[in-house]
């Protein structure tokens, strides 16, 4: 059993709920034992570092200090979110190479009774753990429902393969690790040239036109390669391409309908876990059509039924005429 401390990050509980659900579902077959860091806090994303440096690094380091306390012989901290992974890895790295930063951050941590020695923890991304600790052979051995015929565009985004402080990835711009995992699942993996291009990051919030252009490039490229679906390792990438695809389409007059899901969701499918336990159906650009091709049905959750009444939903005059009115509504609904 591989035991790790888990740093989930804020988005895993909300916008990337499908990532968390599918990760928990595949953890058991993969022999992955994840212990959530107790009382972790937000990593500050890409926002805090741009405002005030020492507080930003202290915010990250509180998590490192808590994790070091709770380590209990475990190998490493695993972060499934790219931004969280990078922030934790960066704080650990910079506190070591710039002792002045390390000292000040520890001054701040001391105010909360905490301390962190850089280098105590090994910070790793989930994909790295799956490839290097669990191994492709184990992944292959768990596949019962290979994804033959599903054209998948592997999409890593930026912050996992770059800047890569510990040289863990095969390449900074065209790494093949995610391709290998998806191939092990039996999928038809596209050699996607934009696999580490930017999804727009926080620009969807502060400079939408800039972000839409970055989203358009990715959609165009995935469409050119006739991808059925995109698979990502990052909550921010998923949110930007999924939730803002419609707005980008309206902005450019395009009509892309490219579903984007987490690679863990596809792993779960290949392991024979039912789609509803893997967070399918939570994506806004539905993956249903793509999955139907390979014989996977995603059950549609019953939406509350609306009464079918002709015309505008005004309080019906009919009701005023006593019971007779109710009957007529029922008839109209038929």
């Amino acid at each position, binding site marked *: 059993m591989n035991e790790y401390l888990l740093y989930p990050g804020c988005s895993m509980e909300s916008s990337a709920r499908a990532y968390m659900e599918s990760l928990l579902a595949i953890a058991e077959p993969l022999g992955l034992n994840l212990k959530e860091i107790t009382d972790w806090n937000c990593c500050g994303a890409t926002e805090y570092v741009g405002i005030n440096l*020492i507080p930003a690094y202290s915010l990250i380091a509180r998590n490192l200090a808590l994790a070091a306390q709770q380590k209990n012989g475990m190998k490493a901290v695993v972060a499934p979110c790219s931004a969280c992974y990078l922030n934790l890895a960066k704080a650990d790295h910079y506190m070591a190479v710039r002792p002045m930063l390390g000292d000040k951050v520890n001054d701040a941590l001391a105010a909360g009774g905490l301390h962190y020695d850089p280098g105590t923890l090994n910070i790793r991304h989930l994909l790295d753990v799956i490839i290097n600790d669990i191994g492709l052979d184990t992944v292959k051995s768990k596949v019962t429902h290979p994804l033959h015929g599903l054209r998948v565009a592997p999409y890593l985004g930026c912050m996992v393969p770059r800047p890569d402080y510990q040289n863990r990835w095969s390449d900074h711009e065209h790494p093949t690790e995610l391709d290998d995992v998806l191939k092990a699942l039996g999928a038809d993996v596209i050699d996607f040239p934009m696999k580490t291009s930017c999804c727009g990051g926080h620009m969807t919030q502060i400079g939408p036109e800039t972000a839409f252009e970055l989203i358009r490039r990715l959609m165009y490229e995935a469409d050119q390669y006739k991808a059925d679906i995109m698979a990502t390792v990052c909550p921010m990438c998923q949110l930007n391409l999924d939730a803002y695809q419609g707005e980008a389409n309206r902005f450019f007059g395009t009509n892309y309908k490219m579903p984007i899901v987490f690679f863990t969701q596809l792993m779960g499918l290949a392991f024979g876990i039912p789609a509803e336990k893997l967070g399918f159906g939570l994506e806004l650009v539905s993956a249903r059509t793509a999955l139907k091709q390979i014989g996977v049905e995603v059950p549609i959750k019953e939406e509350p039924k609306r009464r079918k009444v002709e015309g505008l939903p005004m309080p019906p005059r009919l009701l005023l005429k006593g019971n007779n009115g109710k009957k007529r509504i029922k008839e109209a609904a038929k």
Partner: protein
Amino acid sequence: MPQMTDERVHAGLIHEEDLSLLNEVSIKTAGVSRLEMCIQCGSCGGSCPVAMDMDHTPRMLFAMLRAGMRDEVLRSNTPWMCVSCYHCVVRCPQDVLIADVMYTLKGMAIKAKLYRDSTPPDFSQTFVGMVENYGRSFEFGLASRHYLTHFPLRLPGMAGMGLGLLTKKRMHVKPRRIKNIDQLSAILEKAKTLELAS
């Protein structure tokens, strides 16, 4: 050498106000920035996916830093456009920590109140405010406040998406607070009294 200047400032041999702008930015950056090693090759601007929307490419900005053009640098939209994709960082032949330098410049622009568009710093500050209050990010509060203030006209087009995220429970209506928020507040209070370059 960056480390040397760094150490000399730390030892009180040089004061911050006597530093060149380039050295000041370098010292205020988290890692060892190597900013003074820039050879003006332009790999950064050529690698940048959003260079088309920047006032200056990173290369130009670094030349301006070296020339001491403080106001022009801090007024540039370049740091605010940076999407932290790290393409330039891995391609830079001199290993300059370009993305981290951009973070430093944002912080300096906020302190000097020299940014032109208030949207990006407001977003960052609203985000940080939520994190300081709850210890976790709070997307619903952040998004509604941010869009109402800065993009009210985008709201009708976004209603469907927002509703989708809410009904699929991909966005929570109430914030979640960590247990030991007092500890986090104490840490951040203390951290705010500290600066890297002093």
